[in-house]
């Protein structure tokens, strides 16, 4: 390896080059209205901060946190749209803060950021999403068929993998749960598991190796019938999962086949239960 030439002052060259670039970026002040408060009570607080080209809402929120409001509560992790931590309502729309660019929002009005409204409020932009973590274990876990090969492995067609990949992209940001009117407006959390977990159930039901049958629980315990396909969840999904058309509707069809098919019921009675 040839040694890179020594730079005087030896700030690493990469950082130095970046600093020069940063100086040339367009800057400007921008107004933000952030929800502050705890346990449901709160109000918008106004902040102004310097923004530059390419900044996302999360950058501005973090900058305000570092410079003006050290105790501003906000969740984030990857900052690249892969972990689903920084869900919020930005200008009234459910979005990930890390994937919402400031230059895509109207420049002539303040950017408002509020917590997700379908979940109990904790503090500032943070809500209690623990209900979601209690729902998932209620769904029958993955149950594979016996291995295909003597070495304990399976043979799967790439097309069968791709069919469920869409559902497995889910980053569990819970924005779909946030907009679902069954949860948000009617608070039927005890009777309905919400779009996220219907997608999860679909991923299991359509998994090429899975042999469990979740149709009965989907109808009886998870309230799939409550979904009336308004597609609000699909519209807000940052992973662009076609939640209603590709996951919920096919699940509804399976459930209907199972429950309102007298001939099939007779066959099942004779031959025992079978996966579709």
């Amino acid at each position, binding site marked *: 390896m040839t040694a890179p030439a020594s730079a005087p002052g030896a700030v690493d060259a990469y950082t130095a080059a*970046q600093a020069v670039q940063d100086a040339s970026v367009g800057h400007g002040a921008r107004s933000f209205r952030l929800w502050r408060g705890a346990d449901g009570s709160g109000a918008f607080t106004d902040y102004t901060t310097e923004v530059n080209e390419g900044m996302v809402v999360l950058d501005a929120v973090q900058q305000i946190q570092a410079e003006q409001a050290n105790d501003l509560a906000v969740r984030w992790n990857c900052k*690249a749209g892969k972990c689903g931590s920084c869900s919020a309502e930005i200008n009234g729309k459910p979005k990930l803060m890390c994937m919402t660019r400031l230059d895509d929002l109207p420049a002539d009005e303040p950017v408002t950021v509020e917590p997700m409204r379908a979940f109990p409020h904790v503090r500032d932009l943070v809500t209690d999403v623990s209900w979601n973590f209690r729902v998932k274990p209620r769904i029958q876990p993955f149950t594979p068929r016996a291995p295909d090969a003597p070495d304990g492995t399976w043979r799967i067609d790439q097309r069968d993998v791709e069919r469920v990949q869409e559902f497995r992209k889910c980053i569990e940001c819970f924005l779909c749960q946030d907009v679902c009117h069954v949860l948000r407006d009617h608070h039927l959390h005890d009777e309905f598991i919400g779009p996220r977990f219907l997608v999860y159930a679909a991923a299991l039901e359509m998994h090429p190796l899975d042999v469990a049958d979740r149709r009965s629980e989907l109808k009886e315990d998870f309230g799939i019938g409550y979904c009336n396909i308004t597609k609000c969840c699909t519209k807000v999904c940052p992973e662009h999962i076609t939640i209603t058309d590709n996951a919920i509707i096919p699940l509804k069809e399976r459930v209907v086949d199972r429950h309102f098919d007298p001939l099939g019921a007779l066959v099942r009675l004779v031959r025992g239960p079978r996966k579709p």
Partner: protein
Amino acid sequence: MAEYQTVDHDVLVVGAGGAGLRAAIEAAASGLSVGVVCKSLLGKAHTVMAEGGVAAALANVDDRDSWRVHFADTMRGGQYLNNWRMAELHAREAPARVRELEAWGALFDRTADGRILQRNFGGHRYPRLAHVGDRTGLEMIRTLQDHGIHKGIDVHMECTVLTLLRDGERIAGAFAYDRERGRFRLFRARAVILATGGVGRAFSITSNSWEYTGDGHALAYLAGAALQDMEFVQFHPTGMIWPPSVRGILVTEGVRGEGGVLRNRDGKRFMFEDIPENYRAQTADSEEEGWRYTQGDKDARRPPELLTRDHVARMIVREVKEGRGSPHGGVYLDISWIKERLPNAAEHIRKKLPSMYHQFMQLAGIDITKEAMEIGPTTHYIMGGIRVDGDTQMSTVPGLFACGECAAGLHGANRLGGNSLSDLLVFGQRAGEHAARFARNAAAVTIDAGEVDEEASRALAPFARASGAEGPYQVQESLQTTMQNHVGIVRTAHEMERALGEIESLKQRADRVVVPGNREFNPGWHTALDLRHLLIVSEAITRSALARKESRGGHFRDDFPEKDAAFAGFNHVTRTGADGTMQLTREPIPAMPAELAAIIKEMQS
């Protein structure tokens, strides 16, 4: 007297990324009570960001592959400072761990005959990385999470460990606080597994999130355990650099695995200009041969873009320093060029690299099927960590185990891409098994209540201080600037000595920070508490790097640019000295068994 809730577990796992979850599943399988503590919500840990794949010699794509080749590749990549026992176990056990993941529901991309598909990656001789497009980490963490929630494991989400507690010499538990309400929680446990990940937040430019503040490293160090190889930090060659707000975000090595090439401002593929001696025989000597390799031609050798990460990162720095960089201070990574070779190239790229396509489109306004990306190095991973026994993963403190990124040994001086996800699985499993065994055979623990009270007072001090002092974010930023500028990709003694001085004064500043507000979900308070850990790992990195007067793997010294055989036979180990200061020693690497030495010799050709 501090108020706190006491929770008892047989085994406590700190961290819920791939390593922590795999460890917890294993420990719970033996019927013990297992608790997992994680700083964020379940499923958000950094494993989610891993893109390229998990390395395992399944030999599904190239039947010349075997654990022996994987072992030799890992040792060569680590410049032979690796714990050879860990490298051996890792190579032998990774295939079983990957297959087990499939049995738990993970769906990897497939070969034509329906087996797990494997892709090329830097430093791996044959296509070895099982993957799911470019979101393998998400598939892995979700599979472990969804499997783990049915295994009776108690998960304590958004809970941060402040200190480990000991009963005499052995581990006795951990003292922690929950983020939501800021209440203290005391965990009593007969065995503790640290799986806390890395230290990226010690640097300004990093692919790591706020969580990666060296917690496991520092907690172990403060509990009397030894750290090892702390000078070896991996600067991933391809991070985003533009716009400024996305700087540091990872661009997967998979882009190069799929045929992406690096070019400088003049359009030249500079990676051909300097190929290290020990990789020359395996590297393509023409662009044509490199392309054939990425397309699966078994007779072709790998393109120089797929050399190890340390080398690629330094080559990029060289181009920038010598004035051949891109407009924003990096170089170009181009995958769009494959349209000259493949019909439907745009569709192919979107299918193989969907999250990269999405990431650049959304955050930078760049269509990677049409244009080159601008990239530069970003702090990504630390090879160094808690010194552990290769078989059991136990640290030098009885009952304290470590696995994943926070443990040292497997990767030596440089980690190969894809060896991290397999590391999590192999050593997560081993740590879980051995911690459970230790816990079963250990007597109940006693906690020193005085020690807990003292720790609680320390944690609350930032609220009690007089106003007027600075906040935690300013101190964190100063530390990041110090480490980035003085202990980064290119290091010199002069710069690092300066860094040590700055770290000393930052310790004073950290002890004076003031936090507004109260204990409820207060990120300012959390940042203040993380500072102690960041300062410890920064000092350990700097002291170890200063003492290694050579260049090897991820550690490059401008004042000692060559590899030096005198530094080949030992690891640097850091511990707390009797006077409380950090002590550095050289620990010789034990001789390798003849069988392993023979493999390395055989694979050198």
